């Protein structure tokens, strides 16, 4: 976000001139001139990706439900292999239309008699029964699996809003969420699943 802002500074003077004409007329502040895409927050020190970037760069985009997670040593590193039952394949390999395996860095496992964990700050996480909206890369350190695009950035959860609609959040949730419009508690960011999908599809069609 901040990086893009800098890139936009070149049009700043032009915008000032346009802004001077606003006083007596209805204002149409277009995103191209005046705003910066507020991309989902990233994790760790990953390069920040906008939703449009993630959509375009992802090999596979699916919604689904995490069926199971299993830790696996790959060489000297632990991965949590998440099996996701695909419900909607929005982009990518037809083979990914029923089930995908996603390699999540870090995990818990044993080496002989020793019980160990590998911890990586900000790495993506999934839990069984977790409904997810995933932007995946076919570049993965584990053969036969996908990785989450942009570290954890491509990992969204799908939950129910308190009015029954499905919504997308950055974090996993088991409680009904308030949509945040109208009278609400707090200011948590949620987005309707239908709008999120529509936005992704609009980027695909660009």
């Amino acid at each position, binding site marked *: 976000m901040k990086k893009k802002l800098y890139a936009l500074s070149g049009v700043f003077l032009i915008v000032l001139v346009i802004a001077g004409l606003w006083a007596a007329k209805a*204002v149409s502040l277009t995103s191209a001139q005046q705003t910066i895409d507020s991309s989902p*927050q990233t994790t760790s020190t990953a390069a920040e990706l906008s939703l449009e970037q993630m959509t375009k760069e992802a090999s596979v985009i699916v919604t689904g439900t995490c069926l199971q997670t299993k830790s696996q040593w790959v060489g000297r590193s632990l991965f949590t292999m998440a099996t996701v039952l695909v419900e909607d394949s929005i982009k990518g390999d037809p083979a990914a239309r029923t089930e995908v395996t996603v390699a999540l860095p870090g995990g*818990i496992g044993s080496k002989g008699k020793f019980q160990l*964990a590998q911890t990586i700050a900000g790495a993506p996480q999934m839990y069984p029964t977790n409904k997810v909206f995933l932007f995946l890369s076919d570049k993965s350190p584990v053969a036969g699996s996908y990785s989450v695009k942009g570290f954890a950035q491509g990992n969204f959860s799908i939950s129910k809003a308190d009015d029954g609609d499905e919504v997308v959040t950055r*974090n996993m949730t088991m409680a009904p969420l308030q949509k945040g419009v109208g009278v609400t508690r*707090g200011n948590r960011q949620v987005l309707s699943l239908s709008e999120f999908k529509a936005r992704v599809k609009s980027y695909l069609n660009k």
Partner: protein
Amino acid sequence: MKSIEKKIFNFGLCLCLSLANVIAVQAGGALETIDITGLPPSPIPGLVAAKLIGIKWDTRSIPVKYSINNTLDPIPNPLGAPVLTLAQARTALQMSFDSWNKIPTSFIDMEITGTTANPGLVGFDFVNELTFRTDPSFPAIASSPSTSLIEDTVLQDGDDIDGDGDSDVSSAITVCTDVDGDGDIEFPAGFYKAGTILDNDVQFNANALRFTVGDANVDTNTGSVDLGATATHEFGHSHGLSHVLDNQISRTDGTGVTMFPFIDTGDPVAELNARSLSSDDIAWSSYFYPEGSAKSGPAALQRGDKAFNKEYGLIKGELRHGVLNQPIAGGSLFAVDFLSDKFVASGFSGTTQLLYDPVSGGLFLINDPAFHILNGKYVIPVPKGLYAVGVEAVDGNPVPSSSISFTAQIGDAFGQQDFNEEFYNRSREDAREVRLGEKFPVAVLPPLNISSGINIVTSDSVNINNFGDRNFIGFTGAVPGQLYAVQVPASQIASVNPGGGLLIQGVAFDTAVANASVVPIYAKAVLTTGTVNGTTATIDLTHPLAQQNGFVGQDSDLAPFYFLTPRLLGTAVQKGIEKGKIQNLFIVLQVPTTTPFPGVSGLPSLIGLDGAGTPGGSNDAPLFGFSFTSIDGGATWSQVPNFNFRFSLVVSKPLDEP
């Protein structure tokens, strides 16, 4: 983040007094793993109750010895010819270690003692490796994977823990040593607690970024990053520190703490600042590795050291959710200096547990917060001083709970991160409070233990939000003094508690800046009245209900402006509505009136916007038509048809109503 407004203004319909409290938020704490010692039973057969604990080095591992990978020299530069030799990188990396090593109250000590010629990737091998080799799929700037024990363990002479055929444990040593000279480190035989780090590596993504050293080479190229800034952050993880929320130290310093998870590679000031530890970074490193906590070994006081327990006190308490009546997991508690409002340190609430499947290694959640959240206790280590203690939800702004910890995610999973920021106000702490910005001073006088019992209950206040999620931030082309306003119709206010009273507690603005080192400051924040006529509005800026000049926002977060007299304000507004004198409230924010705007981009302070941005585009909320702007000081206002400005009105029922 935070900062505090203290100016009090008289005005408006009822001459109400307002006290603005722009609260910042941040948090500190531990990188988590699980503890399955004794395989505690769980409600699910076959699964184990796994308590979440922090990871850290055992004192026998200190100094922690690192080897730098020497197979890439010079360091690859994806932007062109190499600009960094391995020797330069090694010097910069040791300087980053030394930033932590020099903390007088922390006995952490991390040293580069050798090299490794590993042609592959890092992993669990008892070589603490620093490398510029990463897998092509590696998406981050850098990462710091740590391998740790998840149960109390007795390591015995000859144990081969990593399975490479070489013993990793020796009874002949008392500190970690490369006994056999083969390049990996052996641990002394003996007992080790769950959470003990056995191996840590740090990998820097030279496939994607140009790493530089030296102040002169820090630039605005977003594909280039200061190695020292990146390494100092990662080395915080290396000794067990988690990410934190604080991205704004004070009302005059927009830089964040080193352990904030994002680096603005386009802002040289922000990059350089990340090399220097903040008070929060120092406090948590010291809390985990307290100098003077032993009579011998690395924790014993040596020349130049200061005893942690004489320099620091602990603010302790419990955080509970006032509506759900539950202890909160992962709420962010923070301490600011009571007089200057400068952020000092923070911590997360909650002791938590997950379900663990010993067969698959999988972690599980069940829909039972009572099982997962054992308590809402928190601790904040702070130096001697007088503090205000506040709490903020880890609600995605500025950082999602998934970037923080399992514990924060657990709280999020059970819908707990849905409260407004507020301060501890002692006897008035309750599920409903009148003044969310009211602060009671907390004195910390180490070594006296006088700052316990700082218990906070989150308020049941609600927000009137005429907007959906944030789609954009803007406006980059705002002119000096430009005003943004959001209409809140009287009918909407009246519908909050029909027939009952109302507390108007504050307003909140979704604010942001273009450059991470800049404070999102605004000429003023205002709550006032006005009328709407078609696509124009008349907004009364000369008789505001509440006003804060020099309002300080929070970068990528909702910044509250809390009022001192919510009862009076609520009563006045309700009467004004009943008598037809108030048709709307307006929440107003003004861009600074002078230029140049600060920061390398030279852009004005920004606001959060909801809307597709393009005609007919999809959006989660209707375009209400409640957003207006003025570029002539408020003489004329124009409706903004394509966005909802993300400004909230914070209200509550009175204390004596259910």
